[in-house]
């Protein structure tokens, strides 16, 4: 082939050449998906426990584990699973809303205005993202305790926001920087105030970026375990990850409950992903300038 004038581009490969990628991709897919399949196997193995075989399908499929996880109540008859699901939703939702609302305005200011402390602020936000969150665990614990916010959703929301806001701000600033300045300038000449520009031009144009940023922020809060595990001690205050971890106790290891609750917890995130998927493609600004 080399040196000949005929490239193979545009011509579909045939025969074994077409098969070759598949021989490579199939094993890779198996390796990637096997752990997921194994979790499903565990979850479907019922409460009696799974056999130790490597085959990722249970011998006697049953939904007992799901039922047990979803219907769990405490001594007073409180529906614990519902309570914990609600905790997770409220904490993740509030963190996301707080993060996005504050980050949108902050990011716009960072992207468009010159003011004293602009650089320092941006770098400060970046610096907080560079340290592993666990470093701040003890100071945060002390703070939250002094504020009397242990075992409360508000405490967790505040703590999560300290990482969500810088992350969202940087992501959104990056996007705002790509929006053509002329669009805003023509709005200025059309008579719009800064606030009107922000609300009627910038936010609609940034919908895809905001959706994606919100998704990541929601996922981070939804999946967070270490901080939640540290600040929450009462079962009714748990978020789902803490509860999931609790199925794997020191004495009593309930792998099937662990697996079933993990799968249940994955559903809302997958649904959200599906909902914003079309935005991931982006491209809303097409056609505004040039062509």
């Amino acid at each position, binding site marked *: 082939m080399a040196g000949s004038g005929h490239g193979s581009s545009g011509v579909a490969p045939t025969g074994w050449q077409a098969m070759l990628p598949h021989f490579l991709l199939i094993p890779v897919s198996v390796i990637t998906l096997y752990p997921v399949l194994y979790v499903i196997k565990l979850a479907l193995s019922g409460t009696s426990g799974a056999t130790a075989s490597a085959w990722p399908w249970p011998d006697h499929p049953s939904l007992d584990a799901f039922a047990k996880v979803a219907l769990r109540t405490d001594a007073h008859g409180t529906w614990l699973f519902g309570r914990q699901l609600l905790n997770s939703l409220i904490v993740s939702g509030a963190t996301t809303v707080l993060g996005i609302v504050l980050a949108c305005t902050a990011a716009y200011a960072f992207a468009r205005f010159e003011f004293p402390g602009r650089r320092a602020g941006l770098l400060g936000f970046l610096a907080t993202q560079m340290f592993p969150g666990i470093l701040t665990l003890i100071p945060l614990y002390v703070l939250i305790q002094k504020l009397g916010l242990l075992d409360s959703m508000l405490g967790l929301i505040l703590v999560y926001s300290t990482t969500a806001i810088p992350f969202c701000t940087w992501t959104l600033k990056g996007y705002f920087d790509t929006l053509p300045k002329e669009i805003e300038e023509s709005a200025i*000449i059309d008579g719009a105030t800064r606030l009107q520009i922000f609300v009627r031009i910038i936010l609609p144009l940034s919908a895809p970026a905001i959706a994606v940023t919100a998704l990541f922020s929601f996922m981070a809060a939804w999946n967070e375990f270490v901080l939640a595990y540290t600040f929450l001690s009462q079962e009714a205050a748990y978020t789902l990850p803490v509860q999931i971890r609790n199925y794997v106790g020191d004495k009593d290891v309930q792998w099937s409950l662990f697996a079933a609750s993990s799968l249940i917890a994955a559903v809302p995130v997958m649904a959200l992903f599906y909902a914003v998927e079309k935005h991931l493609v982006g491209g809303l600004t097409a*056609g*505004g*300038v040039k062509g």
Partner: protein
Amino acid sequence: MARVLCKGIEKSYGDVRVVRSLDLEVADGEFLVLVGASGCGKSTTLRMVAGLEAITAGQLLIGDRVVNDVAPRDRDIAMVFQSYALYPHMTVRDNMAFGLTLRGVAKAEIEQRVGVASTMLGLNDLLDRKPAALSGGQRQRVAMGRAVVRQPSVFLFDEPLSNLDAKLRVQMRLEIAKLHKKLGTTILYVTHDQVEAMTLADRIAVMHEGVLQQCAPPQVIYSRPANTYVATFIGSPAMNLFAVQRQGTRLVGSGLAMDLDPGEIELLCGDETELTVGIRPQDWRPAPSGSTPDATLQVDVQEPLGSETFVFGELLGANRDLLAGRDLITQQRADSLVILRLEAGFGGHQGPAIGLHIDRQRLHAFDAKGVRLNKNTSEPTLG
């Protein structure tokens, strides 16, 4: 409607003076084209008029009001950007209506004004589309429509046609001319394209490195350029310059040797002896056989275009370094090839050299600094 008056306007970024003490008036209802090479400060000037850029020094008046510190929305101007800058998430209708909505104009009136503008610009079938679904020319029209519906007292255009292909550019140029004729609104129009400048302008302002070189009607800019920069910037192909000396009634140098009448030479160069003459490509004629030519061209290339023929070459005996040594500001390299624009059948010249005569009436003379000397140049034939 209103005039725009710049009084000693300056713009500096740090130590860099981008616009230098600009005095310029766009009269009420006038179409003024600000032209110059890329980076000379045209957009900066326009943006200062729009209020998008702060004015470093000087006074800007729109109408009779000093507007240095007036916000863009209160200047009663509309601007068309080079990149169109449409609102991508709004339909064509909403793009045009946006400014009016913000100003609280009544719904019915918005509808009516958008209707008039879209009819005028042929946008009626596109009103419900978003910008992404429009061609370049259509986006350009929407950008103009957005300015038109506002009924401002001044339109500002920043190279509105430079993103269009050649054919559309001609078409949109005509539409802009029609628009001005119809509305009669004051227009300040920025371009680097001299054809746009010549065809659209009531007056042209030529700018170079932040300094206004000349402001005059197109014919005057063409036939009586104020200096070597304007002379070589306007006109295509560009005027050629030659360093010459006056010896009595003769001009000699750079391969030229021409006798003038005493009156002619007086008008042309006063009592200056070292000068630069400029000759446009169409002001040469093949010398009739038997006569003494003013110059002889060593032909490099001929380009017959059917209606006319361009001839490129060097004058015999030319020393182009002489001109380069004069340090004039010009648009062209001073030592570039000499260009003639001759009639199509100028004699079927085959040989390596042509004897040439020069139209005395159309000689341009500049002093050592490149400032125009002669007062005699006849009215032009635009080319």
